[in-house]
């Protein structure tokens, strides 16, 4: 009985195709060819095709300056900033499954995330990734400055980069409130208090008291930019929902749009910078 089975198995193996033949059959099959329109990228033609026919890779040029792809030159910091942004997007979506932005639930949803969700480290990845992204963006700017890469024709891409730096800080700042613990609430209180002192637009800012009609102050504690930012006189549930929407919808959309322009312009302005 056992011998018979062994014999049968040997027969099947003897008849079955070699791994190379299987590989060939897959690579030349209709399914594979419909997805990848080129062969394995080890020839110049296929390397060009690999970049051109892939929507993700086609952010790149087909060829790049050798000096510009070296890590000692770029430090990889722009790429890492983008990688961290993607990471934060994915973990952020996972966090949204568990989190309700109300004063009643927000804090306890975070506690539940820690206590009940198996392998629930998405908040850790999100938080440490956010810290790391701030540093990565600074270092990216530092590198671009030290290599003089903002010089013509890349001036305007530097400007977009500065806006993206501000956006990164805003993303981190709006997310800071969401755990709704003491650290969050008071850090945001300290940060947003500045808005009260905005010239003309904050009620404790210089010039605000001059904006009045018939002795009625138009800019007061209930109508100034601080109130608009917080949705109240101090950090409260209204602030939580505002910061949640800003953090999860508004700022990421702006960031993604500007990133698209930033990357596109890297290409259009002549690729990674290098000496003339």
């Amino acid at each position, binding site marked *: 009985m056992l011998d018979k089975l062994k014999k049968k198995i040997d027969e099947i193996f003897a008849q079955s195709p070699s791994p190379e033949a299987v590989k060939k059959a897959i690579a030349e099959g209709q399914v594979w060819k419909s997805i990848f329109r080129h062969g394995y990228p080890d020839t110049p033609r296929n390397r060009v095709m690999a970049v051109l026919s892939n929507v993700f890779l086609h952010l790149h040029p087909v060829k790049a300056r050798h000096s510009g792809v070296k890590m000692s030159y770029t430090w990889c910091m722009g790429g890492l900033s983008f990688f961290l942004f993607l990471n934060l997007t994915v973990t952020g979506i996972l966090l949204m499954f568990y989190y309700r932005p109300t004063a009643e639930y927000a804090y306890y949803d975070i506690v539940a995330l820690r206590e009940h969700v198996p392998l629930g480290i998405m908040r850790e990845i999100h938080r440490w990734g956010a810290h790391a992204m701030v540093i990565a963006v600074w270092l990216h700017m530092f590198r671009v400055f030290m290599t003089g890469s903002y010089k013509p024709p890349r001036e305007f891409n530097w400007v977009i980069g500065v806006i993206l730096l501000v956006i990164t800080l805003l993303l981190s700042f709006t997310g800071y409130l969401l755990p709704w613990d003491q650290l969050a609430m008071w850090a945001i209180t300290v940060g947003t208090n500045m808005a*009260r*002192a905005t010239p003309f637009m904050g009620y404790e800012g210089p010039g605000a008291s001059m904006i009045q009609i018939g002795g009625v102050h138009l800019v007061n504690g209930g109508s100034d930019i601080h109130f608009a930012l917080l949705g109240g006189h101090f950090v409260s549930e209204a602030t939580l929902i505002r910061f949640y929407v800003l953090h999860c919808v508004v700022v990421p959309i702006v960031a993604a749009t500007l990133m698209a322009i930033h990357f596109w312009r890297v290409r259009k302005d002549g690729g990674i910078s290098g000496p003339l």
Partner: protein
Amino acid sequence: MHYILDAIDFVLQPWSYFLFSVIAFWAMIKYREKWTEPAFAVKLLWGAIGAIVFSMVYSVHFREIASLPDNVPIFLMVFSVGFFTWLSFRQGVLNDRRIAQGQPPIEKETSDKKVYVWPDLVYIEFIATVVAGVVLLIWSLCLHAPLEQAATPAWTPNPSKAPWYFLGLQEMLVYYDPWLAGVVFPTLIIVGLMAIPYIDKNPKGAGYYTFNERKLAIIPFLFGFFILWVTLIFLGTFMRGPGWNFFGPYENWDLHKVVVLNNVNLSEYIWVRILGIGLPSNFLLREIWGFLAVGFYLIGLPPLLTKKIPLLQELLEKMGVVRYGILIFLFLSMAALPIKMVLRWLINLKYIVAIPEIFFNI
């Protein structure tokens, strides 16, 4: 050992901390040929690690702050900024040596050669992604994201600190009012950064590391980044305690520390102490000296400096009036922080212009 810790606490004050960081900055620029040598740089790295280990071992207070999970980024920032400063200066120094000998920079050797993005760039990106992902995962597995008690408006923690990357701005609040430190200066930082490519018309140094060819651009930028941003974040993390009082890095945060608040406005200095006739009741007249000082600083000083300093004259001729004017304005705005710091430390100056009636204090 405690004598050493106490001595460091005694020596470190806001003014000496600032002075030491400026001296370190000057030395970094001046002796760049020396400290960028790998052997010397490794010694510096060991020195920095040694200083932190020493602090962690011998000071419970320092250990408590340093081991807060949210302060990991501070160390990440300090060491990564340190490493990449070395990396950029090292390559700049090497390139400067080549340029002095009439050779092109190192980047030039490979910049004309084009390589296929697949695989030469894609594999670098792939490996960087994997390494960054693994580091992030291990960091997340090892260190829980902190969660304090639920938010309550009824209890204000002391000190209340902004997120770590804004601590430089919070430090500015010691010297300037919120409308300047929290609104105008941050706006000027952003605008100033955006203006860099339009102000720096030096065609040299694009696309390679160099120091000698871009001194005028690199020194102010790094002064802002290192002295007015990174070191202030470090100060805000480790040396600002309850009541935003200054504490040495090893000093316990005493809630009841009493600090003499003897800061005096410029108007009082002049009207009361020098002229001895008391403050005028009209606030515009009262603050006339402050207005004159600020007006001179922003309007009178630029032409004077330009006339006296040949380098600035040369810049004016190269850049044209508009660009040059913007450059000088941004420079003076940046210098306004250290100037006010020094005035505070030397003569306890509170406000140069003080009109609390309309929240206009400078």
